[in-house]
């Protein structure tokens, strides 16, 4: 029985590719990496028998043994710190932080060591480790379960920061992350765990490349993670209103694909950045600033951003007021100095 066929993560074969949920794609990527490379180990809180609270590690201990996929004591700095030590000693640890906010106890280890040890040793020791974090909201989680902390990681030199928005990217980018000699913070949009798509496990992904998720000529939406389906939805509605909206899935937050993004925005002359995280000093502001700087002569209107508010993440019942939605995206598009403006 392959992992992808296992009980929880839904998967169904259709010809050469397979339709599966993002959760199943991630599970499959972990299993394939474990099978391919004996140095890969998976650990964290509840990733063993339970298979992770989101079941992303489902079945891995059963298939690969306690040695390769195991639970740790409940201490995130301990998890990351020991992963650093393992990476120093030739392993490729893939660790799970249970929720975004629960990676914070490990922040010193991440910033002062994970991100810096390769530089400190002049490349004498590399840090091929992956920190998987189920991130973002939209699932009605209580406080501390819905944060988006990509800004903290993307600001930290030395870290690669990725976030997939499709099962295919989930699979291919996670494989690429595990194969990378550098440390990767891998942000899994919780809201999309159960979204389905085709996955071809032969497809490899290149870290650092954005993806044109929809072609369009009037305005470019720049998004990542759970904001990509939102952007696509908004594009669809806007199409009904007669606007041709391009959608770029940034997916590699750091390094950032300036080439694709700049070309995209130059082609439309208008842009809106969408992200769930609070907007102040965020990845969204970085993208906005970069696009402004690189596309200045091409812009018909200021680049806008639609982000989470600069407040703590909302309680479950307030989530729908907090999160960027189609209306907010369309409102932002409306401000972009259209010729038909009154």
């Amino acid at each position, binding site marked *: 029985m392959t992992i992808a066929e296992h009980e929880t993560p839904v998967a169904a074969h259709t010809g050469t590719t397979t339709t599966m949920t993002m959760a199943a794609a991630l599970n499959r990527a972990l299993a394939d990496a474990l099978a391919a490379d004996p140095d890969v180990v998976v650990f964290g809180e*509840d990733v063993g028998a339970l298979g992770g609270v989101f079941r992303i590690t489902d079945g891995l201990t059963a298939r690969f043994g306690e040695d390769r996929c195991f*639970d740790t004591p*409940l201490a995130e700095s301990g998890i990351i710190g020991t992963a650093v030590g393992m990476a120093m000693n030739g392993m490729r640890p893939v660790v799970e932080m249970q929720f975004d906010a629960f990676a914070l*106890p490990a922040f010193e280890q991440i910033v002062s060591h994970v991100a810096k040890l390769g530089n400190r040793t002049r490349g004498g020791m590399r840090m091929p480790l992956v920190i998987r974090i189920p991130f973002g909201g939209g699932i009605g989680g209580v406080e501390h379960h819905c944060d988006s902390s990509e800004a903290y990681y993307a600001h930290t030199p030395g870290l690669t920061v990725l976030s997939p928005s499709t099962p295919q990217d989930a699979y291919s980018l996670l494989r690429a992350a595990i194969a990378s000699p550098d440390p990767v913070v891998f942000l899994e949009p919780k809201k999309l765990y159960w979204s389905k798509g085709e996955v071809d496990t032969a497809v490899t992904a290149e870290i650092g490349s954005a993806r044109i998720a929809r072609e369009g000529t009037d305005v470019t939406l720049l998004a990542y993670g759970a904001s990509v389906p939102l952007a696509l939805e908004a594009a669809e509605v806007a199409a009904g209103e007669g606007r041709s909206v391009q959608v770029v899935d940034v997916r590699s937050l750091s390094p950032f694909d300036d080439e694709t993004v700049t070309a995209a925005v130059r082609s439309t002359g208008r842009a809106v950045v969408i992200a769930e995280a609070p907007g102040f000093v965020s990845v969204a502001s970085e993208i906005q600033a970069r696009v402004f700087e690189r596309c200045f002569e091409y812009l018909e209107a200021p680049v806008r951003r639609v982000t989470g508010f600069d*407040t*703590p993440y909302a*309680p479950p*019942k307030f989530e729908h007021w907090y999160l960027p939605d189609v209306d907010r995206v369309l409102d932002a598009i409306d401000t972009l100095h259209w010729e038909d403006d009154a």
Partner: protein
Amino acid sequence: MHPHDMLPRDIAVRLIAEDGTALPDEAYALPAADVLLAAYRGLVEGRRINDQAGALVRQGRLAVYPSSHGQEACQVAAAMVLGDTDWLFPTYRDSVAVIARGVAPAEAMVLLKGDWHSGYDVRAHRVAPQATPLATQLLHAVGFAQAAKHRGEDTVVLALCGDGATSEGDFHEAMNFAAVFHVPVVFFVQNNEFAISVPLSRQTAAPSLAHKAVGYGMPGQRVDGNDVAAVLAVLTEAVDRARAGGGPSLVEAHTYRMQAHTNADDDTRYREREEVQAWLARDPLLRLRAHLTATGTLDDEAESRFAAGAEEIAAAMRTALNTDADLDPEDLFRFVTATRSPQREEQWQLLRDEIARSHPAETMTTGGPR
């Protein structure tokens, strides 16, 4: 105190056997009959609250509920040993303790209902907000006690956490700060054998969690967490010591999480049904009832009075939780800081405009919704 005297006993303190027989102990006296009767009432109510909350989750009225079913002796004792000027620092699993301390069930459930991050007046009941990030609240408890000591106030702080939380760095730092500053805090660990799916053996290799105390220079003790008499006796000693200026201590209760971590969890994946079944025999309610019945302290009248009281609480919970609270989206902005931020005010205005557009009748705006 010689280091050996800071070590807990090899076997956890017990005052009532599983069949209800009192077990004499050289150091800890059995609490008085009226105290045990009050505790029993608390257990009955606590069990009912746990069960009612579970039902409300299944009905979709609570977003999530981490049940303390099986741990009610710890919950009730934690509330009972504290005086009016004392403070309780609970976790997400300690709703029963929070309610036992006087918080209205409906207010205690606000967090789990999803209406806000915390729903009770912390000062009115001297109960800190229930903490989710593990072990972080232990440091708050220490700082709180430091402030009380600084002002010479008569406040003992009882800080709760689980076995899993003892692995966090903050547990260590809290124990150490408490000991170094000699503050009136009692750390009460409910060792229920699991941290979600992770068993105690993956959490520690120590003889017991209470053995950690000596490493900070404070006494540690272990107690049977399903024996409310023993928990009351051991915690009372610790609270009294703290109040008298004797400094902090660590109490570990051996208990068991009878249900899954929360409703969202599936415990069949990681533990045998037999293991759970085996703990049924140690149920804290049955044990105390056996004792109180045998000693003639509990009669049918009291039993049905307690049951009726518990039903009333459950009914109040249902009423409160079956009503949708009137939520004001602007609360998102209202409490972030006490001072103003133009950035946030701009966003606040944006939200107000959206709301106005979607409820045009209630507002002065002329533009309709999109």
